[in-house]
């Protein structure tokens, strides 16, 4: 028990002192996951809108596939990306293995299904509501799409936050394709796994606290976006 209490005290000390090693790991984590969410948004939002608004063969298969991919174990995604970017793989020449770029790529694969799937649901139900009125007003297609995205903006932000939550918290994918190399590819989750196995509980706990804090902040932000959205449209 004493050991745990001691670890806690040291963890808090690391946070208060803004330990350089701690900050480096947090910084890389945010850099990787925020980049992944940004790229996933550029892919996932248009993909979600396409699935919501267009009827084409294979649409239902694509929707089911996205839903399945939402629950993919990160280690499996990591393994697949590893095979692609490893030296013998099809993208081996790029030399991406064990770099932050590979970690971002793996997290993009994890986040795109979440963003696309949630965006599809949101845009589809909004379109259901607006369609008749838009047809009556003879709204041009591009203007209709812009209006749907704008009016769904709060719900879409929530989808991006959900994607960020998954990216920042996963261990498996970044561990496999990043390799957890100190100063290069070590992020919060992989650092925790390593430090616990080494018996260095204080750094692990400090990082754990930061992750909990981030998770809390994401949820508050998501709740705030929802509240703001409802206030704007009157519940």
């Amino acid at each position, binding site marked *: 028990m004493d050991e745990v209490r001691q670890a806690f005290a040291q963890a808090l000390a690391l946070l208060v002192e803004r330990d350089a090693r701690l900050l480096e790991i947090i910084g890389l984590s945010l850099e990787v996951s925020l980049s992944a969410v940004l790229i996933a948004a550029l892919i996932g939002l248009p993909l979600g809108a396409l699935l919501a608004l267009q009827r084409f063969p294979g649409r239902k298969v694509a929707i089911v596939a996205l839903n399945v991919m939402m629950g993919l174990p990160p280690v499996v995604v990591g393994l697949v990306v590893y095979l692609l970017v490893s030296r013998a793989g099809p993208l081996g020449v790029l030399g991406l293995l064990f770099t932050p770029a590979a970690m971002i790529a793996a997290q993009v694969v994890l986040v795109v299904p979440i963003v696309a799937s949630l965006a599809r649901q949101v845009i589809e139900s909004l379109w259901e*509501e*607006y369609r*008749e*009125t838009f*047809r*009556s*007003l*003879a*709204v*041009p297609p591009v*203007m209709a799409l812009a*209006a749907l995205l704008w*009016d769904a903006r709060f719900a879409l932000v929530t989808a991006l936050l959900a994607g960020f939550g998954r990216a920042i918290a996963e261990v498996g994918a970044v561990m496999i394709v990043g390799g957890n190399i100190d100063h290069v590819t070590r992020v919060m989750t992989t650092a925790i796994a390593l430090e616990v196995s080494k018996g260095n509980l204080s750094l692990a706990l400090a990082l754990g606290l930061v992750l909990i804090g981030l998770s809390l902040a994401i949820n508050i932000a998501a709740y705030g976006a929802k509240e703001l*959205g409802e*206030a*704007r*449209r*009157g*519940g």
Partner: protein
Amino acid sequence: MSGVGDILPLELAGVSLTRGGKRVLKDLDLTLSAEPSRTLIIGPNGAGKSLLLKVAHGLVTPERGTVRWHGAGAGAARRAQAMVFQRPTLLRRSARANLAFALRARGVGGAERERRIDEILNRTGLARLAHAPARALSFGEQQRLALARALVLRPAVLFLDEPTANLDPAAGHLVEELINRACGEGIKVVMTCHDLNQVRRLADEVIFLHRGRIKERAPAEQFFAGPENDLARAFLAGEPLWWRRRSIYDGIEEG
């Protein structure tokens, strides 16, 4: 102001429509002339009133029959019409932005757009609510905003699907005034309604629709003096005659 004559008369010929395995419009012919007037479509629930409006407006394509606007292609015809639905669908933005959106869709911009928005806000009594979120307005205000959004487009033909169905008397009265004024300005109004007193107040012409067919069409005075059709007479008297007749004629008339 676009003249009514630009796209009218509207001609529906042999229009049939099925919904959920039931024929809801049956081989229906209807011509709406070019003179500005208020045509009220009445009839019991499920008679096909709303669908008739949607077919005429071009939102629903009939399985058989034609809908023809004169002197205009489909695009131009659509832009010369507007419709207010039973339940207003407003965008998740301010009242003013809802009006601006409709005008932008028609390519109206700049000072002209602002001028028209100000004018319609004043006319519909919504000026003080211009910056309120449209979805936060009361139901009556939302319905008025939907009517304002239709009127600001200055349509030649205005379709109204029970625009006062859920409004209190004062709000309903205001909507009636707006409809009368629109008609006075040369807009052809085609409207469904359940409130016979309102029909008496508004109608120039009455169309009685029953189970997907036009049973009677007459000038309002003549219709209220005594409809020729027995179903229409029963409807005016508030009698449930058509239920009896349905059981007798079931399968024959519909065949």
